[in-house]
C-alpha cells in the first residue's frame, strides 16, 4: 500500500494529512481501473460490428438512454438509437464517410431514449482494423450536447434572422431603386422609346437614373445620368437631380440651362465637406416639321457621349467635349450638340457601367468605348427595342463582370405607317 502511494506522496511528506483521508484517496485511485473508467467515463462509449450491431456499451450511455444492457447488446443497431431523420442522415452521410475515411468526428445527432425523449449528442466514430487492414469494429464516443445544441440552435436562428434581414434590405433597395426610375416611359407620337436598368448589386442602391417626359408645345425632354457613389446618400442625390431636371426643364427647356440649374442646386445643397456630383446628358426633342423626324439638342455635363446609329447603317458618337461634372464647380462648363434624327435613326444614351464592365468576370479587361462603337456599327440600322435588347444580352454575357449599375435609354424614329401620317 505504502509502496503504491509513494509517487503521489513524493512532493508532500503527508505530515498535515490524516491517515484516514489518505486511505480513502488511495482506494479511490485503485478503483479507477481501466474498466471503471470505461463504464463510468463522463461520455458514452459504444462498440458495434461493421453492420452497426451493438456489441459493447458503457454504463454512462445506458444511464442516459434508460436502457438495460441486455436490451441493446446483440439486439439493436446503432442507427436504431437515432431519430428517423438522424437515421437518414446516418445512412446517407455518416456511415459512408466513416467507411471511406475510417473515422468521422463531432457529428450532431439525436438519440432516442427508452422513454421516448430525445438526447442531443455529438458523435465521433472510428473503425478498428485488424492487422491485415480489414475493418473489424466501429468504436463510438458520444458526448452529451444538450447545452451546446441549444447554443447552436440559437446561432442558427440568428443566422436565419440575418438572412431574412438581408432579404428585406434587398427588397427595400430594389423598391427604392424603382422609385428613382419612371414606372413607364412617356409615349411620344412618332418616336419609339425603350430603356433598361441593370442592377449590379442588390445590396446597395445604385445611382443611375433616366427619364423621358413631355414639355410645352409638342417638345419632349429626356435625360440619363449617373450619381457618384452608391447607397442611400447617392439615392438622395439621384432623387434631387431627377426632380430638379424636370422642374428646370419646365422653367427653361434649353438643355444647357437645365444642367446649369442642376449644377447650382447641387452646389447649394452639398457645399462644404460633403460634395456630391453626377454626370448627366439632357436632351430636348423637337419634331422637325420640314425634314420629318426630330431635332435633338443634347447637353452633357461630363457624361459619356450618345451613340447615333443611322438608317444608312453607319454609327458614330455625338461628342460633347468640354462638358464638366455637375455639382463640383460653381460654374460648370456645359457642352451641347444638335443633330437631326431622321426616319430609321436610333439614338442610344448609356452610363459608364456598360463601357466599364469587365468582359470576363475577374479579368482586368474592360468593354470600352471602342467596343461599344463597333457594337453600334454592327447593329445599325436598328430600333429602340432591338438595341436595348442587344445591350441586355451583352450585359448578360459579362455576368458578374458588370460591377456598376448600368442605365440605357434609346429613341428611334420609325417609318410612319400608312394610317398614321406624320
Amino acid at each position, binding site marked *: 500500500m505504502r509502496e503504491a502511494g509513494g509517487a503521489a506522496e513524493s512532493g508532500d511528506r503527508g505530515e498535515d494529512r490524516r491517515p484516514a483521508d489518505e486511505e480513502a484517496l488511495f482506494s479511490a485511485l485503485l478503483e479507477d481501473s481501466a474498466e471503471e473508467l470505461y463504464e463510468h467515463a463522463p461520455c458514452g462509449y459504444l462498440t458495434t460490428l461493421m*453492420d452497426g450491431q451493438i456489441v459493447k456499451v458503457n454504463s454512462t450511455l445506458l444511464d442516459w438512454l434508460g436502457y438495460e444492457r441486455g436490451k441493446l447488446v446483440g439486439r439493436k443497431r446503432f442507427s436504431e438509437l437515432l431519430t428517423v*431523420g*438522424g437515421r437518414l442522415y446516418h445512412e*446517407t*452521410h455518416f456511415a459512408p*464517410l466513416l467507411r*471511406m475515411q475510417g473515422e468521422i468526428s463531432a457529428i450532431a445527432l439525436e438519440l432516442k431514449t427508452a422513454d421516448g425523449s430525445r438526447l442531443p449528442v455529438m458523435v465521433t466514430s472510428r473503425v478498428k482494423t485488424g492487422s491485415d487492414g480489414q475493418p473489424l469494429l466501429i468504436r463510438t464516443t458520444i458526448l452529451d450536447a444538450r447545452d451546446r445544441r441549444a447554443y447552436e440552435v440559437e446561432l442558427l436562428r440568428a443566422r436565419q434572422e440575418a438572412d431574412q434581414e438581408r432579404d428585406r434590405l434587398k427588397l427595400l433597395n430594389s423598391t427604392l431603386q424603382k422609385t428613382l426610375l419612371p414606372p413607364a416611359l412617356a409615349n411620344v407620337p412618332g418616336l419609339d422609346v425603350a430603356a433598361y436598368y441593370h442592377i449590379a448589386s442588390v445590396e446597395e442602391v445604385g445611382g443611375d437614373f433616366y427619364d423621358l417626359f413631355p414639355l410645352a408645345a409638342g417638345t419632349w425632354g429626356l435625360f440619363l445620368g449617373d450619381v457618384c457613389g452608391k447607397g442611400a446618400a447617392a439615392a438622395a442625390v439621384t432623387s434631387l437631380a431627377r426632380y430638379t431636371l424636370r422642374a428646370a426643364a419646365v422653367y427653361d427647356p434649353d438643355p444647357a440651362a437645365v444642367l446649369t440649374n442642376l449644377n447650382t442646386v447641387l452646389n447649394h445643397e452639398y457645399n462644404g465637406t460633403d460634395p456630391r456630383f453626377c454626370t448627366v446628358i439632357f436632351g430636348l426633342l423637337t419634331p422637325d416639321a420640314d425634314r420629318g423626324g426630330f431635332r435633338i439638342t443634347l447637353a452633357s455635363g461630363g457624361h459619356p457621349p450618345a451613340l447615333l446609329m443611322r438608317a444608312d447603317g453607319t454609327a458614330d458618337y455625338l461628342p460633347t467635349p468640354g462638358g464638366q461634372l455637375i455639382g463640383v464647380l460653381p460654374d460648370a462648363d456645359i457642352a451641347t450638340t444638335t443633330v437631326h434624327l431622321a426616319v430609321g435613326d436610333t439614338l442610344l444614351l448609356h452610363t459608364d457601367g456598360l463601357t466599364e464592365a469587365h468582359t470576363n468576370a475577374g479579368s482586368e479587361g474592360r468593354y470600352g468605348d471602342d467596343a461599344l462603337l463597333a457594337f453600334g456599327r454592327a447593329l445599325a440600322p436598328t430600333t429602340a427595342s432591338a438595341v436595348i435588347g442587344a445591350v441586355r444580352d451583352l450585359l448578360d454575357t459579362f455576368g458578374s463582370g458588370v460591377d456598376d449599375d448600368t442605365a440605357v435609354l434609346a429613341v428611334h424614329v420609325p417609318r410612319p405607317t400608312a394610317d398614321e401620317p406624320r
Partner: protein
Amino acid sequence: MDVRSRNHVTVTGRTGGPVVVLAHGFGCDQNMWRLVVPALEREFTVVLFDHVGSGNSAQSAWSRERYSSLDGYVDDVLELCREIALGPVTFVGHSVSGMMGVLAATREPEAFAGLVLLAPSPCFVDDPDTGYRGGFSAEDIDELLESLDANYLGWSGAMAPVIMGNPDRPELGAELTNSFCRTDPEIARVFARVTFLSDNRADLASVAVPTLVAQCSSDPIAPPEVGAFVHAQIPGSRLVTLNATGHCPQLSAPEETAAAITAFVGTAG
C-alpha cells in the same frame, strides 16, 4: 458548359470494354464507388461522375430551378451518355440515382444496355391510400433537413471557400474534417427534398431495358418490400438481395456488389 467538367467526369478501366456508368446518390459523390471500381475496371470502361451540386462538379452550373426535380439530373445523365459513350451503357444508379436511371431509360431507351438499381426506392414516403410503405413520413424528411442544418453550422464562413476551391486561403483545407462528400448546405437541402419527396412509382412500368434490382438484406432507408415493389413494377426485371447491410453496399460489401454488377453486364450486354 462542357459535360465533362460540369459533372467532373472520370473515365477509367478497359478501353473498348462494355461501358458502365456509376451514379452516386444523395449525400456523397463519386468517391462512393472507390471500393468497387478496382473490380469493375478490369473488364469494363467505367464512367464516374458527380451530380451537379455534389463533389467536384461545377457549382456554377447548379440552379434551384433545374435541380428542384429529378428532371434536371436526368437531362444531365442523358447528355453524359451522349457525350461519353459511343454506344448503349449499363447505368448503375445508387439510391435516388436509380430513379434517374429509370426516367432516363424511359425517355431514351436506346442509350441504355441495362439498368442496375442499387438500393432503390421509387418513393420514400408512405402512401396510405394505396397501402404503399416507403418507410417514412413527410415529417421524417423535415427531421432529416434539421439534421443537415445541425451539421452544417459554420459552413458558409469556413468551408465555403474550400468547397468553392478558393486558392487564396489554402490553409482552410487543413481544417476540414471530412474530405469527401462536401456539399453546399443550400444545395444539399434541395437535393434532399428531391431525393426523399419524389414519387416515381408510376414510371417503373415504362422501363423497357434489362433491369437488375439489387437491394440490401437490411437497409434502414430502402427496406426489402420496397425493392420487391420495384422488381414487381418493372417488367422482366431481376431482383437480387445482397448480404450487404445498410444503404451503401458499394462500401459495406464492395466485392459482392461488383460481382452482381459484373454478372448482370454479362447477361444484359
